[in-house]
């Protein structure tokens, strides 16, 4: 799979870091499948792939954040075990993450030298540190002040500080994870200049990005990941953007989807010109018996949009019509009364009370209904919990088991069960199958079909293209906060849809 490096470029004979049959499993998911890849010393190697293709997992294995399940990592030909970030740092492996991981309350200089402070007799030499920080930043060509508190800078500038920090301490191998997501054009140019400079100093760069134009501008080679597998590695002068997108989206049909032919019912919700924090001018409609899929890259504004529909965040413009009547949704309780249900993206932080019982979690939305006067009808409470445990095949020792001890799939079923108990006309599913095993996925798909048969409408946000592709009656593509394209069921190829989402 490796091809010779460009003439006069890095020496292919000595891979600085090599992965052999590297494998990573989480409960329920096989995140990386037997990766074989060698990085050549001094190259810029881009890694592309859809959301969930395994890019982040790969970084975390290489920086020692996650332990590998099996396989081997070689550093300059020596087999190494990365038992923690410390081991990776000691070798000279460092990463700049998408979100800044620094101390926002400290100054730029203090952040740059955190853990490596300049002291004399145990006292901090603050002025000297600011001076050398300024030298470092100027030397890198970054226009960032050294003596201000980090949190007063823009996210983009903070990203540059993080990069400067990573490049400081004898780094030989530097991984960038979507570094330009929050950068302005000028900051991007400064960053690229730094990356090229590091390369000229012999540092190996792994560059992860959705933005294919950056890959072609910067990289020597590019590898494509899809569903945890390494699909191919190319020299950038041997492939074009369409070729990369094809490699990212081509799939053998190994996943099972379940969809019934359900006639579309009357119009349920009509959204006109909806704008808010993270999304602009979104118009779409949902009918009973229909799945409306929202696809896009992470950060395209889909979750923000559905959470605003649900009243979680305010919207700045636009109207909602429910069965033809204009409505306002001021908060979540309004939305629920109206007949909406949100199954949020993050089960653990938004969906579940982890240290409480299964029973309390599946009944949380319906305690009003389970009460007579002031007390809860215990028999009704247990019956409602047991019904969901039985119907959804939730595997749990008992209804009083704490939700935290359940598997990801069963936790997701608890969230679903909560809303089945409550009932709704319009279900907003945000990434319903993330971290869920294949069997549970199929159960969730069957459940969607059942909801549609019963006359509900569904909006489904998913970052996994085949899923929205196979299940949606109408598929909308979001890019940079906007709805950029709409397709009927399987009207276009996955390649065309991914092209819209990336915006080539």
């Amino acid at each position, binding site marked *: 799979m490796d091809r010779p490096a460009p003439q006069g470029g890095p020496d292919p004979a000595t891979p600085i870091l090599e992965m052999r049959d590297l494998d990573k499993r989480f409960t329920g998911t096989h995140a990386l499948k037997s990766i074989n890849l060698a990085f050549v010393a001094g190259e810029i190697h881009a890694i592309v792939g859809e959301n969930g293709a395994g890019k982040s997992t790969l970084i975390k294995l290489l920086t020692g954040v996650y332990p590998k399940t099996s396989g081997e990592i070689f550093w300059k030909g020596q087999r190494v075990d990365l038992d923690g970030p410390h081991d990776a740092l000691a070798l000279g492996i460092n990463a700049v993450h998408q979100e800044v991981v620094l101390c926002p309350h400290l100054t730029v200089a203090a952040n740059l030298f955190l853990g490596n402070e300049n002291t004399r007799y145990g006292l901090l030499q603050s002025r000297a540190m600011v001076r050398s920080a300024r030298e470092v930043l100027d030397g890198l060509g970054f226009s960032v002040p050294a003596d201000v508190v980090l949190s007063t800078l823009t996210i983009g500038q903070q990203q540059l500080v993080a990069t400067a920090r990573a490049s400081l301490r004898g780094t030989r191998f530097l991984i960038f994870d979507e570094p330009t997501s929050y950068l302005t054009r000028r900051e991007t140019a400064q960053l690229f200049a730094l990356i090229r400079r590091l390369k000229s100093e012999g540092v190996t760069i792994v560059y992860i990005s959705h933005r294919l134009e950056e890959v072609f501008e910067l990289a020597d080679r590019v590898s494509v990941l899809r569903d945890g597998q390494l699909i191919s590695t190319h020299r950038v002068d041997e492939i074009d953007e369409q070729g990369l997108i094809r490699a990212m989206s081509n799939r053998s049909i190994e996943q099972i989807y379940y969809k019934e032919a359900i006639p579309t019912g009357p119009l349920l919700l009509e959204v006109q010109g909806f704008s808010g924090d993270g999304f602009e001018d979104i118009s779409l409609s949902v009918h009973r018996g229909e799945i409306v899929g929202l696809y896009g890259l992470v950060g395209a504004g889909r979750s923000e949009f559905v959470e605003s529909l649900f009243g979680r965040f305010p919207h700045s413009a636009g109207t909602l019509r429910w069965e033809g009547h204009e409505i306002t949704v001021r908060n979540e309780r309004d939305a*629920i009364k109206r007949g909406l249900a949100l199954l*949020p993206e993050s089960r653990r*932080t*938004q969906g579940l*009370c*982890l240290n409480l019982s299964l029973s309390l979690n599946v009944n949380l939305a319906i305690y009003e209904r389970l009460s007579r006067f002031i007390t809860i009808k215990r028999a009704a409470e247990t019956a409602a919990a047991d019904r969901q445990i039985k119907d959804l095949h939730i595997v749990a020792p008992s209804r009083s088991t704490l939700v935290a001890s359940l598997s990801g799939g069963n936790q997701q079923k608890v969230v679903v069960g909560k809303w089945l108990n409550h009932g709704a006309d319009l279900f907003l599913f945000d990434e319903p199958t993330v971290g869920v095993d294949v069997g549970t996925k199929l159960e969730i798909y069957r459940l969607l079909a059942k909801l549609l048969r019963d006359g509900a409408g569904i909006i489904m946000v998913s970052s996994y293209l085949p899923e929205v592709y196979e299940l949606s009656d109408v598929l909308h593509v979001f890019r940079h906060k906007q709805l950029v394209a709409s397709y009927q069921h399987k009207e276009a190829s996955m390649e065309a849809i991914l092209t819209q989402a990336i915006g080539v």
Partner: protein
Amino acid sequence: MSDTVNKAQARINILLSLTLLILLLLIWAILSVVTPSFATANNFVNLMRQASLWAIIAIGETFVIITTGIDLAVGAVVGFAGVIVAMLLKAGVSIWASVLITLAVGVAIGAFHGFGVLKLGLPPFIMTLATLTALHGIGLLMTNGSTISGLPDAFTDFSREAFLGIPSLFWMVILVAIPSYVYLHLSRWGRHLFAVGSNAEAARLSGVNVSTTIYTAYILSSLLAAFAGILTASRLSMGLATNGTGWELQAIASTVIGGTSLFGAIGSVPGPLLGAILLTTINNGGTLLNVNSFWQLIITGGLIIVIVYFDQLRRRR
């Protein structure tokens, strides 16, 4: 297989939750043997009276701690409510009206705590620390730092009376504990309280009115503290702004000994009751055994660490 393991574990958990009661009974048994005066009706009534006041504020404190908050102002509310009720009585207001007005003041203080925490976004620790200090000041200002005595006999006799052999103050605990139990363990509002303490975001997205729930917790805490303040004024036959100083710590200790988690979402009504009785017993027993009162403080501190440590062990299983 996992089912039997779980049942076994459930049985162990029940056993461990009984340990607090067993520990209490054990201490009582030992004290009855080693001191002649512990097991006397007189001493027991006295112990119950003191435990009553702490138990009432500890129950209110429990509600707040379940929401992951804390109410440091309960002790100050005890003193402040005592001043209010005493001043009203001295002004010739009827006993019932004085009590109701004082309880209303408690509700207002609790609502102010809720306002500070929810609307101003202050950490509960800071908000209630601020009112603790301020309420002390207001109470001292109103009374000029002096004691208000000469309260009506009908008011002061109440706390000395007993009904069916049980001190009336302890009846007041029952009066508080039963509706509290219904609220926390049998009603939907109790479920909502636990849900908000466990994950406010998930509760909100499930349609729980999070602010109402949190307001309720702070209001109940201050209401119960005001009630304890009225009873304290009756028991001591006076209103004094510095009554109840430091009781917030007794309340927090009682509820934590009773199994409430400071991380929220774990707590019960029987827990703080037992905790308050245990704390009072240690004080009472120490006095009867002629243990230096300074040593009593040290022993109390040590016991809190030991009991809560074992409680955490149980939860971690």
